[in-house]
């Protein structure tokens, strides 16, 4: 612990530290006059009473070692009214000299530890913001870890903040802590050593790793070994995302205790709902065992649409979810579809888009062909535009066509070419706050998600066949 080198803040000065308002993008943050009275920050007095449901920062201080951060965490709660003092007064003012118009008693709460590993400061700030918005439903001790200057000398800088929220105007205020750690040099490579001492004990640990998690690195393995849940966003990975998807499935197989959730997969729940509904009809259900073709169309910005350039994790998850639910296995993993022979392009004419990827699955009743085809679209690259299912049973053909339409998912079904059903499902776009919230809500392993991930990795060419079965 002695090797930390002080970076900022310094040691024993006693001049007040003035911090800036912490919600620069919030148009009406309820003017915050942030004055720390201790050597390294401290309580932040609010000029006006906080508004219900809006998190406000009520404490900020700094430290340059894990020990120091631990001491700061204790200090926040050492003074009972420290973060509770609220300007504006109330009918039951306490009259305490330190908190002359104190009104709400602050209570500290945590239901989990949330660790965010961020590659860039902006990513960390954004994640902190997302988590803040969730603190109402999922109060947690949050650690945002940033590795900086990997080749420099080892150092550590910690910023400790307490955020409080009034659930209602007449309720006591509740608070939780956020710790921003910036680790330089060698220190940044020992994530587990940084994180473990700062966790609230006995509470589950969720690691949110936005961007590109280096899942195969020693640092990641050490950290994941002490975690209960890993949250990633497969749709944000570089290239087609398939290599990292295989790593993710391997990580899932390696750690028994670790539950893996991918935003890309969670995001699709309303699509899955819509698809499932088609087969709620008893007359259509039998066709599920006789799927012959699954084709997914996704948006691309790339002019050629050639495989490898557009992230295909989302469209792949659709196929993988269907295949894993229906007990199919992969007989031929995804491979680029051979381009058709093509006439010479005339000058000014664009080459047609690549025909995408294809794969083959096997179900109990036969072969199922899979096609994932890019389409030039203004939608974000990698967005699923359409899923078509084709099933044949006893000479009859069922076709289901699922498309996204603004905020809705549209399902259209035909039996032998005759329209059978036409339904719309509300599928509002969900942001990171909604998705993380939904993920944190569930606990334990998500068997359906795990199986979909495993099958997706198999489709992406991972050799390992499904083997591990979760104890639950």
């Amino acid at each position, binding site marked *: 612990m002695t090797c930390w080198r002080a970076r900022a803040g310094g040691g024993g000065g006693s001049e007040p530290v003035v911090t800036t308002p912490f919600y620069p993008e919030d148009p009406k943050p309820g003017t915050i006059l942030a004055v720390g009275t201790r050597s390294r920050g401290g309580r932040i007095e609010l000029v006006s009473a906080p508004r219900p*449901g809006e998190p406000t920062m009520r404490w900020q201080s700094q430290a340059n070692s894990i020990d120091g951060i631990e001491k700061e965490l204790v200090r926040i709660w050492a003074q009972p009214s420290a973060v509770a003092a609220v300007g504006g007064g109330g009918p039951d003012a306490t009259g305490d000299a330190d908190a002359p118009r104190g009104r709400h008693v602050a209570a500290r709460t945590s*239901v989990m530890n949330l660790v965010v590993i961020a590659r860039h400061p902006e990513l960390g700030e954004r994640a902190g913001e997302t988590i803040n918005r969730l603190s*109402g439903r999922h109060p947690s001790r949050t650690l945002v870890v940033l590795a900086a200057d990997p080749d420099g000398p080892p150092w550590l800088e910690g910023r400790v903040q307490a955020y409080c929220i009034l659930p*209602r105007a007449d309720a006591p205020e*509740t608070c939780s802590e956020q710790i921003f750690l910036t680790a330089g040099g060698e220190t940044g490579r020992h994530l587990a050593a940084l994180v473990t001492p700062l966790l609230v004990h006995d509470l589950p640990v969720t690691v949110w790793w936005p961007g590109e998690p280096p899942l195969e690195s020693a640092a990641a393995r050490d950290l994941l070994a002490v975690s209960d849940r890993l949250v990633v966003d497969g749709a944000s990975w570089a290239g087609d995302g398939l290599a990292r998807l295989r790593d993710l499935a391997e990580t899932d197989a390696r750690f028994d205790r670790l539950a893996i959730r991918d935003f890309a997969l969670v995001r699709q729940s309303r699509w899955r709902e819509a698809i499932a509904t088609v087969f709620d009809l008893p007359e259509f259900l039998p066709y599920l065992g006789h799927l012959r073709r699954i084709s997914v169309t996704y948006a691309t910005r790339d002019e050629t649409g050639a495989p490898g350039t557009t992230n295909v994790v989302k469209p792949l998850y659709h196929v993988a979810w269907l295949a894993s639910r*229906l007990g199919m296995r992969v007989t031929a993993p995804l491979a680029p579809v051979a381009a058709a022979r093509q006439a010479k392009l005339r000058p000014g004419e664009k080459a047609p888009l690549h025909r995408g990827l294809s794969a083959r699955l096997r179900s109990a009743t036969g072969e199922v062909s899979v096609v994932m085809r890019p389409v030039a679209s203004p939608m974000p690259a990698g967005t699923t535009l359409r899923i078509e299912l084709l099933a044949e049973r006893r000479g009859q053909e069922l076709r289901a066509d699922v498309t996204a339409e603004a905020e809705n998912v549209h399902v259209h079904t035909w039996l032998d070419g005759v329209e059978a059903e036409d339904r719309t499902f509300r599928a509002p776009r969900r942001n990171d706050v909604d998705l993380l919230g939904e993920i944190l809500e569930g606990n334990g392993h998500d068997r359906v998600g795990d199986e979909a991930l495993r099958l997706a990795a198999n489709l992406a060419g991972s050799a390992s066949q499904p083997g591990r079965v979760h104890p639950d």
Partner: protein
Amino acid sequence: MVKAKTGAAETAAPAAPAPSAPAAPAPSKKDAPRTMRDLRLAAETRRRVSTAKQLDNPLREGLRLERVPDANVFVLFGATGDLAHRKVVPALYQLWRTHLLPHEFVIVAVGRRAYTDEAIRAELRASLDQFSRVQPVDEEAWAELAERIVYHRGDFNDPALYSSLGERLDDMDAQRGTRGNRLYYLATQASAFAEIISQLGRAGLDHERHDGGWRRVIIEKPFGRDLDSAVRLNREVGKVFRERQVYRIDHYLGKETVRNLLVFRFGNGIFEPIWNRRHIDHVQITVAESIGIEARGAFYEETGASRDFLQNHLLQLLSLVGMEPPATFGADALRDEKVKVLRAITPFTPDQARSEVVRGQYGPGWVSGKPVAAYRDEPNVDPVSETETFIAARFTIDNWRWSGVPFYLRMGKRLPKRATEIAIQFKEVPHQLFRDSAADPEPNLLAMRIQPDEGIMLRFGAKVPGLGIDVRNVTMDFTYGSAFQTDSPDAYETLILDALLGDASLFTRADEVEQAWSIVDPVINAWADEPAPAFPSYEAGTWGPEAADDLLAREGRRWRRI
């Protein structure tokens, strides 16, 4: 089929050779063929049953949390009334805003007054400003919902209303794809319930169709005003709807803490073993209101605390505290257990009604620093009214678990503050070790607050730091506000969504309502035989008449200070 299954289970165990099990009796030869056949038949039945179930859709697995109700038409009777504006429509708006309602959804607002679609939308929108739980109102979400609201005018007694309504609903199915599913919500005066229901039946609007269109009806409280009228109303409802189509609202059951009571009792292993007469001394259930009757004088004159609260909310809370663990969380398993509790309460004899029940009525006084009028001086109240605004009662549940444990229930208007709480008082320690301590250690207490600050509190003794041994009572406090910082959904949101999803767990069943009336009826009848009570009997802003304190004091107990 049950027999077959048992047979299968019995033979399955010894059939597997378990080396550790010493000499399990082998099935006799005579038994073997019969049980094999049983096994096969059981398996066959299982197969037959399972193909019929919708759950067999393998794509459904893991999607359960996402469930959104089927496409449906929500027919709101009494749409221009207070309840619709205050509770029902704000709850529907909130459900819509949070994407819990289906895309194919229509609200048909039925009322007597002349309105256009636009007018009713504008009026409902205006009341959202006042009554929506989340402000400001999301205009975009409201606009989407508003275009799904249509007005249908008619007199509830007029058969023409129902035939035109039927045609309109069929049109909806065609135009808006609502697939024949209908929920009728009766937010009207209680006196209109029977009429509307029988008219719905006459017009054939109750028939569930073969292709899956469901019909459900939500009936608001009060459900009857005594046992007779409740039985009569149940009979009227039963002529038209089957019990599984009927959802009787008691909004207390939709409250977060009340639902949490079930989680608390049956989701935690440590409480159930002590949840009985061996460990619990008594139970107190308090519903205190600081408000008076709020300009509802005429209504309150006819109901009083016994009908307004005791028959429904208080007895519901009592049965949730006292019930046995249900086998499943299914609607009927749950309600079976609740009814059993009510059945175990022996109705009072007239003598008992006098000794075990205390009624009161508030006189003038001060509440929250303001002077308030006596009940008899409220508008639309008889100046010599004998209606009770306070009731306290001592019940016993005569079963194995609760024999000898009194349940004290009280409810009052114009009490010092608004608080709803269930307190479980545990028995004293069998042997007092710390007699020399400055304060006697009090027995443990578990309190569940339902409002205003929903939460759970456990009181236990702790040593005061320092030399010597002094015991003080300390509390371990859990407030919903501190563990979960968001607001809980309103009871109506929970209940309406449940009804749309077809889950009747939180609604009261016919036999439950009747059973509750059969407990309250003897009390009301006993009062009728008595001379006029000496009302007012408590000052507004106090904890009710002294007789209520005596009810506990005579057994050496007292009401918990709240």
